[in-house]
């Protein structure tokens, strides 16, 4: 009866019940301790021999084996990133009494340069206590032999066969591939957050940028481990067992390495970017940002002078301009404006305007590039001759909201989601954007005058080359948009199974086919009889294009003669294109920083790229500037 819960009657029964519970608790304690004691007897008496052996074996240490990193191949199977094995000379600082003295003695045996020492000391600061750290990499066979003969003089020093990452094409596609480098504190946090800590125990390199970073956990593979018997001093005596690591998965890209190489050559020493896409899949055929850099420099820790050179160069080679440069699209914006006008019913193809060479709005004069104007201009002519006045008026008639609403779904002003980290967003201007962008209420208001220059791709407009390429692709593919991507498929190294990346379209834009066809026709006209005609003279295929110039420097009424301006003040040159016109296999956007007119320096690069991709023609050298009359762009 004492278990039943009743309100308290007397102090005595309450106390009895309480004491009973204490007794109960005491028996639980005794039982639990008996369980523990039983466990100890089991472990320490019954299983003692087994565990003694295991403890002896624990001279057996579990040494993780880093897996082979996956290989990166281009669309035709050309190797772009691979591994090779080389001997390194490594020191385990915890086992060496006098590091500097040991290094000095080693230096008499094997060449150790000052830069090697500097790198070693840098590694030493970042390392864990029992790690062995390389002081020399890529030993020659002779050096290995020389050390082996003297090894007994150097406790704590070892020659190890290690795998190194290599980018056989050198600087080609450096921004796409990225590079690997030693794991640092921030990387460790990422590894831990991804629950990969035990898998990375034997790994000391990790992808830092580009595909190497984005696909790190695909490329890395699964660590294996080796059971090694060590003597009391910690020296390895023999191997007991080995669980082989599983190599990382291989990436096969949509990229064409040869096309990439030719494109990079076509840029010569120009700074800029090009993104070429297969419109029917979104697969990126070439993604170039110049200047490039050699990712091989990073693999075993970049030397500080190399790093300074790359990092402090005014040309900023480490920036991936294709994803991180946001530029006004200039006149390459016009075909999209024209399509918007057709779709929204703001213009018909046949409607003409009369172009006096300028457009006045609210007391401000917006100039056309051609003095005296283009005369009577319909939509076709407006694109072929790149008439600014036509688009000043159109922008004014459409209004900023309509423009923003049409360009948004094209992907302009938003990250494309390409499979490389750190893409910029760009700017699709709209009153809402301005409100977000500026804190000062006076700056937040959208002025109608600002809409005018948006029409010709100037003003706040700023898009990355990959966004432009995606937009041209969408046009070329009749409104079906794919996410631009670099990896075509991932091959599982164990099963050989292939996983496709992005085979499905993102969305289909509801454009009328006749409108699309008209814009394409006008863009074909650009390359036949318009601003792109010189660059595409004698082409064996029909292509569509549009030149563009992003103004950096406004000339108040004065004549613009690019050659007379300092190079860094010259405008950026742009060109968008697709080919063949009837069934596009390639769509691209080119940007040349400070290249002047689009027709002059960007279009010839596009020509070379398309010539190679469609016809297999390899150019002799970098693209030459085409002399064009300035008014045409």
């Amino acid at each position, binding site marked *: 009866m004492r278990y039943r819960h009743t*309100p308290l009657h007397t102090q005595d029964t309450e106390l009895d019940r309480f004491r009973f*519970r204490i007794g109960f*608790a*005491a028996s639980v*304690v005794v039982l639990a301790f008996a369980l*523990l004691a039983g466990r100890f007897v089991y472990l320490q008496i019954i299983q*003692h021999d087994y*565990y*003694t052996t295991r403890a002896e074996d624990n001279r057996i240490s579990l040494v993780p084996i880093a897996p082979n990193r996956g290989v990166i191949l281009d669309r035709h199977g050309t190797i772009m990133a691979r591994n090779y094995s080389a001997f390194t000379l490594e020191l385990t600082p915890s086992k060496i009494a006098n590091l500097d003295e040991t290094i000095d003695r080693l230096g008499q045996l094997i060449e150790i340069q000052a830069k090697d020492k500097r790198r070693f000391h840098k590694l030493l600061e970042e390392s864990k206590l029992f790690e062995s750290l390389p002081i020399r990499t890529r030993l020659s066979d002779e050096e290995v032999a020389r050390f082996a003969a003297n090894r007994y003089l150097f406790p704590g020093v070892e020659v190890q066969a290690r795998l190194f990452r290599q980018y056989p094409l050198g600087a080609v596609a450096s921004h796409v591939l990225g590079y690997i480098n030693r794991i640092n504190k921030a990387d460790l946090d990422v590894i831990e*957050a991804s629950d990969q800590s035990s898998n990375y125990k034997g790994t000391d390199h990790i992808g830092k940028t580009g595909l190497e970073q984005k696909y790190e956990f695909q490329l890395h593979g699964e660590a294996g481990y080796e059971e090694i018997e060590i003597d009391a001093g910690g020296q390895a005596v023999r191997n007991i067992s080995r669980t082989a690591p599983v190599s990382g998965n291989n990436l096969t890209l949509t990229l064409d390495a040869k096309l990439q190489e030719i494109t990079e050559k076509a840029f010569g020493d120009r700074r800029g970017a090009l993104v070429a896409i297969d419109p029917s899949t979104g697969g990126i055929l070439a993604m170039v940002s110049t200047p490039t850099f050699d990712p091989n420099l990073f693999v075993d820790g970049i030397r500080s002078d190399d790093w300074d050179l790359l990092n402090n160069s005014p040309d900023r080679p480490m920036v991936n301009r294709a994803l991180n440069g946001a530029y006004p699209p200039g006149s390459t914006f016009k075909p999209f404006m024209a399509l918007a006008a057709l779709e929204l019913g703001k213009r018909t193809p046949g409607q003409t305007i009369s172009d006096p060479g300028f457009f006045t709005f609210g007391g401000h004069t917006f100039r056309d590039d051609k003095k005296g104007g283009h005369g009577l201009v319909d939509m076709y002519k407006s694109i072929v001759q790149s008439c600014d006045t036509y688009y000043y008026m159109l922008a004014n008639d459409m209004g900023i909201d309509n423009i923003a609403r049409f360009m948004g779904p094209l992907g302009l002003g938003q990250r494309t989601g390409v499979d490389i980290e750190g893409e910029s967003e760009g700017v699709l201007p709209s009153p809402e954007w301005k409100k977000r962008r500026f804190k000062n209420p006076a700056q937040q208001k959208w002025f109608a005058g600002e809409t005018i220059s948006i029409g010709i791709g100037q003003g706040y407009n700023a898009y990355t080359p990959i966004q432009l390429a995606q937009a041209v692709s969408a046009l070329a593919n009749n409104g079906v948009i794919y996410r631009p991507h670099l990896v075509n498929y991932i091959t599982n190294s164990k099963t050989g199974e292939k996983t496709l990346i992005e085979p499905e379209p993102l969305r289909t834009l509801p454009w009328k086919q006749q409108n699309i066809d008209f814009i394409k026709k006008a863009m074909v006209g650009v390359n036949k009889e318009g601003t792109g005609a010189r660059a595409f003279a004698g082409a064996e295929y029909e292509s569509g294009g549009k030149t563009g110039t992003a103004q950096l420097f406004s000339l108040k009424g004065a004549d613009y003669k690019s050659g007379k301006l300092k190079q860094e003040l010259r405008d950026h040159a742009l060109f968008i294109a697709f080919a063949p016109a009837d069934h596009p296999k390639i769509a691209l956007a080119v940007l040349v920083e400070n290249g002047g007119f689009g027709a002059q320096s960007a279009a010839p690069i596009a020509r070379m790229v398309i010539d190679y991709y469609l016809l297999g023609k390899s150019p002799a050298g970098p693209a030459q500037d085409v002399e064009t009359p300035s008014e045409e762009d």
Partner: protein
Amino acid sequence: MFQHYLQRFRERLVEHIDGPLLVITLILMAFGLATIFSATYDANNRAVSQLLNMGVGLVGMWAVAQLPPQKLMRFAVPLYVVGVIMLILVYVIGIKVNGARRWLPLGFTRVQPAEILKIAMPLMLAWYFHKYEAVLRWRHYLVAGLLLLVPFGLIAKQPDLGTAILVGAAGFYVIFFAGLPWKVIVGMVVAAGSAAPFVWTVLHDYQRKRILTLIDPTTDPLGSGYHIIQSTIAIGSGGAFGKGWLMGTQTHLEFIPERHTDFIFAVFSEERGLLGNSILLVLYLMLIARGLMITANASTLFARVLGGSITLSFFTYVFVNMGMVSGILPVVGVPLPFMSYGGTALVTLFIALGILMSIQSHRMLVKK
């Protein structure tokens, strides 16, 4: 004259101290120091700093023992409220260490609010039951359950499963000693059993992994299974009499992780063997037995349920820690009382000890 003051001082010093509890604890601490020394002397010796921690703890214990339970009762609500508020603050401005948000920055230092709840929880619930002693109804148990679950949930979410278990257990013991009906207890056991599959889905990945590796540690020999494999090897290879102090190969070849904190029992067990383990178990049993005796003789409901909860908390520490180190319970962060290295946890334990002593010393309502 001087003699007289010395005499008075000595009396004051030991007046509220419980001899048996102190002696048992001192022996445990001596074992602890020796083991910490063995675990750390070849790298970064922690024995001296643990000695300092013990000094601070003893002073704290003495101070708490001076306060009669009626005074302790006054701390219950404020301590609990402050603790819970700090737990909530941990979510807002807490510092993340190793993926868990447990620490609260206080400018000059940082604290683990969960530690406060180890004392505040039983204190609060004991106060609550004491307050409604005469009118105890079902709903009081429900409210008590709620008071228990809020901090428990907050701590478990940090995540800090080990501390959550200790705080939750301490609260539950109070409710148990306050007379929670048996049918409810049985019902809870049945419910817990049937809820296990659901609990599985809300556990963190790392917690699930620990349970899985408990069943088969070899599935992840480089990762979370490593702790269990290595500590069972240490215990098993210790045999009947151990390898001797400073002679444990598992310890000194650095196979045992956390060897001066949560896994110190593996070090002890390897070097002292089954004999040492048995002595240790007996010492803890004596500690718990003494605690239960004090509890049984306590004069008020407050003192009884508080004393019972604290005593059983010691048991929980010991059982969970030894259980995990010997591979029959999943790995959670619970130290071995008076053995593991660590200042905060030690001070908390000493304060708990001080409360027990206070209950014992003030058991007579009217002073002699």
